[in-house]
């Protein structure tokens, strides 16, 4: 009952149910909130997100949550669009400024013959860098991705995947992490990453 309190930032996305159920399965207490005090008091902060970048950022700004997320001292994890919004800028919706909490750009997955967009399904995690959020996850294990935009690998990439070109699967800067795939829908690999986020990463 006294598991870590995870604040799920309510940015209006639709995969909030599945993320909170995944955290419940790990024994954490997940609370959907857009209240700054709640977010700043939590042991962990998770920014989920399904949908489009323009709407997602606009909603965070309207609620003043862009400022709040900059003040968060606890470990922070962005998932899918939530990860993309942690970065500086995305090409989606004609170009949207992100939160700039981790440096990097998000680009459209380029169309190529035989390459399906959206990138949808189970892809292998490669180029794993030693990081507490990846503890127990092996090179080549698969996670569930579904997205049309991606961050090319950069200095903050700690795991990659390849769909036409390489892309960042997991990024990290200080106590801020992002996962492009959906850990809540990635079977044991995803549960491991969420457990690492809730239990392993140092405060």
């Amino acid at each position, binding site marked *: 009952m006294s598991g870590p309190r995870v604040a799920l930032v309510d940015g209006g996305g*639709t*995969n*909030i*149910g*599945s993320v909170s*159920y*995944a955290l*419940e*399965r790990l024994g954490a207490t997940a609370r959907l909130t857009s209240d700054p005090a709640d977010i700043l008091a939590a042991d962990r902060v998770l920014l989920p997100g*399904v*949908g*489009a970048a323009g709407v997602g950022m606009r909603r965070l700004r309207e609620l003043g949550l862009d400022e709040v997320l900059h003040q968060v001292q606890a470990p922070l994890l962005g998932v899918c669009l939530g990860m993309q919004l942690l970065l500086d800028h995305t090409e989606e919706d004609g170009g949207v400024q992100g939160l700039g909490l981790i440096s990097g750009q998000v680009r459209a997955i380029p*169309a190529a013959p*035989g390459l*399906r*967009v*959206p*990138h*949808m*399904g*189970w*892809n*292998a995690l*490669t180029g794993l860098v030693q990081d507490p959020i990846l503890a127990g996850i092996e090179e*080549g294990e*698969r996670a*569930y*991705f*579904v*997205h*049309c935009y991606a961050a090319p690998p950069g200095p903050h990439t700690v795991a990659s995947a*390849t*769909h036409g070109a390489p892309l960042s699967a997991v990024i990290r800067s200080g106590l801020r992490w992002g996962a492009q795939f*959906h850990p*809540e*829908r*990635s*079977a*044991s690999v*995803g*549960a491991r990453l969420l457990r690492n986020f809730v239990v392993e990463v140092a405060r």
Partner: protein
Amino acid sequence: MTLARRIIPCLDVREGRVVKGTRFRDHRDMGDIVELATRYATEGADELVFYDITASPQGRGVDVNWVTRVARAIDIPFCVAGGIRTVDQARAVLHAGADKISVNTPATRRPELVTELAEAFGVQCVVVGVDSLRDEDGVWRIRQLTGDPDATRALSVTTLDWVRQVQEHGAGEVVLNCMGSDGVRQGYDLEQLAAVRTVCGVPLVASGGAGAPEHFVDVFRDADVDGALAATVFHSGAIPLPALKRTLADAGVEVRLTPDMAA
């Protein structure tokens, strides 16, 4: 290593239970929805599709209670089909924890529905189911209202044109149900799937005709589909998922093997 081909068991749901009928009639109870969903997830299914067979023909929306129960229990993605005609109905299903929603007949009546869903939730959430049959002139055309054999209607639009159109409207995935091979268990309709593949830039899922493990090998190799859906062969236990994944891996098809299959 790259993206894995997906194996997708499809479960028909009536009033929160999994049922199995013959050509949509005489439904037999197959068990509790959460129990079966959990079993498939554990055995290595890559994704599940739940088709709410009460919702669509009776003009009802989806009862989201069972969607929530499934979302709490499983840790792989799932899609809900049947009974979704509006953005609000889709939102309720997605908020309950579904990852994708699939529309079929409502999209044939009002293709703008696909656009509205894609704008509201992103193309990655929006699947369009296409029921297709070859007509006497040799051309594949789509059908609507296939949930009720007495109400099924043939439309004039060709399957290839329809698949092009739904992508323009914002479909993020197409499930092609080849009605001519459905229920016959003689293999997927490779000719039709390969033809649709040439006009389908989003993920394409094959449906209808799986009867043996080799049929899955064939459909991935010869029609280059991204996923293969089946119901009966999984429900009956005729094809166990771990053995199917091994067969595919041995044939050189990229699949997700869970640790207990690797041995």
